[in-house]
């Protein structure tokens, strides 16, 4: 009886969300799959094309490049950002009072900046002629390098900026995770003879693992869908060689008015994100315990 009523209450509370979810997500998603089976412009019905678009996808060099770029971007950002966030969080956790708040704000501030501002900041810092970081680049590479106009340095560059801009959020998650480890648990380990490294390896790391898995999963999904930052940095540059998957959809749909094929690529992204997320989830869970 109460269970029945619970269900009813749950349903009523969820109804607005379900309605919006249906209208704004389920319906467009189904429509997208249908569109991927048509040869159609962005607006307008077009004509039935069967699996033609999918056949085209299989032989599409740009799709392959965009997929490779996107995976490369994820590989460059997710692990590095996670490790960095954990290190920073452990550092911040040692600070106290206003100093901790100030340092935390420093790391979190970039996360609150609009992507366009992040882009402008780093575009200037790394400008080939005036960039204040070019001396460092020159010291490493032997000459000034146009980071965002050189194909091989583009993704590492964008990945670096992305990590800079987003690490603050992961730091926050890790900090919450670290705080949820009771101080006495660490103290017990110290009394048991654990030094800093052993303490991290045997206590902190296993206990923070669920947060690590969360951080990794959030990043995997959000970075597989990367668009804005890549778009801004390769704008008016070598887009072909440096674009991400979502950017390819944007280009097909909005610049080439190729709605049917854009939908096909979008379906491919959906499948890729779903498969990788499930894979990662399984992997992380099995490592958890």
């Amino acid at each position, binding site marked *: 009886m109460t269970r029945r009523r619970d269900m009813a209450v749950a349903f009523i509370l969820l109804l607005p969300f379900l309605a919006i979810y249906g209208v704004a997500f389920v319906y467009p998603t189904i429509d997208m799959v249908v569109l991927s089976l048509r040869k159609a412009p962005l607006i307008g019905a077009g004509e039935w094309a069967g699996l033609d678009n999918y056949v085209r996808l299989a032989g599409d060099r740009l799709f392959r490049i965009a997929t490779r770029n996107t995976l490369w971007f994820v590989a460059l950002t997710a692990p590095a950002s996670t490790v960095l966030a954990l290190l920073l969080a452990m550092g911040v956790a040692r600070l106290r009072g206003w100093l901790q708040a100030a340092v935390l704000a420093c790391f979190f501030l970039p996360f609150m900046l609009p992507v366009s501002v992040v882009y402008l900041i780093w575009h200037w810092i790394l400008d080939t002629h005036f960039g204040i970081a070019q001396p460092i680049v020159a010291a490493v590479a032997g000459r000034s390098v146009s980071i965002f106009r050189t194909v091989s340095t583009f993704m590492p560059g964008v990945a670096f900026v992305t990590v800079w801009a987003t690490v603050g959020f992961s730091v926050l998650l890790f900090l919450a995770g670290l705080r949820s480890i*009771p101080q*006495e*648990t660490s103290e017990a380990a*110290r*009394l*048991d003879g654990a030094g800093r490294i052993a303490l991290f390896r045997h206590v902190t790391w296993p*206990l923070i693992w669920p947060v690590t898995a969360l951080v990794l999963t959030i990043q995997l999904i959000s970075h597989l869908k990367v668009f804005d930052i890549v778009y801004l940095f390769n704008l008016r540059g070598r887009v072909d060689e440096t674009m991400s998957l979502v950017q390819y959809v944007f280009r097909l749909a909005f610049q080439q008015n190729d709605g049917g094929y854009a939908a096909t690529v979008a379906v491919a992204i959906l499948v890729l994100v779903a498969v990788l997320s499930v894979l990662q989830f399984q992997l992380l869970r099995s490592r958890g315990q």
Partner: protein
Amino acid sequence: MPQVEFEKVGKSFGALAVMRELSFRIEDGEFAVLVGPSGCGKSTLLRMLAGLEEITAGEIRIAGRAVNDLPAKDRDIAMVFQSYALYPHMRVVENMGFSLRLRRAPKAAIAERVGAAARTLGLDRLLERYPRELSGGQRQRVAMGRALVRSPSVFLFDEPLSNLDAKLRVQMRTELRHLHQKLGATTIYVTHDQVEAMTMADRIVMMRDGAIEQVGRPLEIYDRPANHFVAGFIGSPAMNVLPGRIRAGADPAVALDGGGVLPLGHVPSLAPGRAVAVGIRPEHLRPDPDGPLLAEVEVIEPTGAETDLSCRCGGQPLMVALRDRGSYRPGQTLRLAPHAGPVHLFDAETSARLTHPESMIQEYDDDRHETRNG
């Protein structure tokens, strides 16, 4: 087993000083209980000894060696936390063997020692479980097991029983004493429960507000509390304290402010008219038609073994613990006399103890409890 010495130890958190010059010594193999009200600094003291908290003044020595700058992991101290602080991601067997694993002990040796400790504590069947799959009492045992396995030179316990139910607490008290008798390790046990202190300690260190009020064997403290505060803290129900003045005249006596005259035995030369506080334990009062105290019964609390009477005597509250069941009624007036125990005198201003053993109405054999240590 080493002795542990505290010499003029002080502690402050930033500008906040929570502990003043604190000196005492715990002998080799002794079971010492640190007792005092919440917030008096017991945990802090323990944590300073363990190396978890910086020692901001003075020196702590273990086996004669100053440990102020020795990291926690090198002090060879095991501690059982109030929260148990088990490693949630490790099974019981791993929790208990963790310290040995860190020391790179051979697997076989770890298994053997964990097995032995588990048998001692009755944990054999729980070794494969995770802490979250254990009851509070079982977790408490695992925490003890983890300390046992290490056979450390000093054992520390920080209110280890306070999260257990009453029955288990009594049982664990006994077990802990047994364990100590078996191992003979120097042990410091923190509690705010005077019953635990009385029943378990070889020696009690009584603390208040970051300072030591009295150090002594349990009955010594019971019989000769150094001051008003200790008198009130140790013993249950708490000692009655009645204000009065030393009466002029040949027979030493106190005239109570609330009425009545309490004769004393041999009293040292206290100036007549001096303000004092008279302490009488509730269990040392008996109904006596000739008794000097006149009290009105307010509440009757039978505990089975005792009958506690909550009375009022000349405007002051007065507790009486009687061995018999009697037939008492609220509103009834009783005459009472101190009986079968000492009357304590404290300075009304400093609250320090004034009486000497000779002053007791009933002579007390000081040797009676010495055997306890043997």
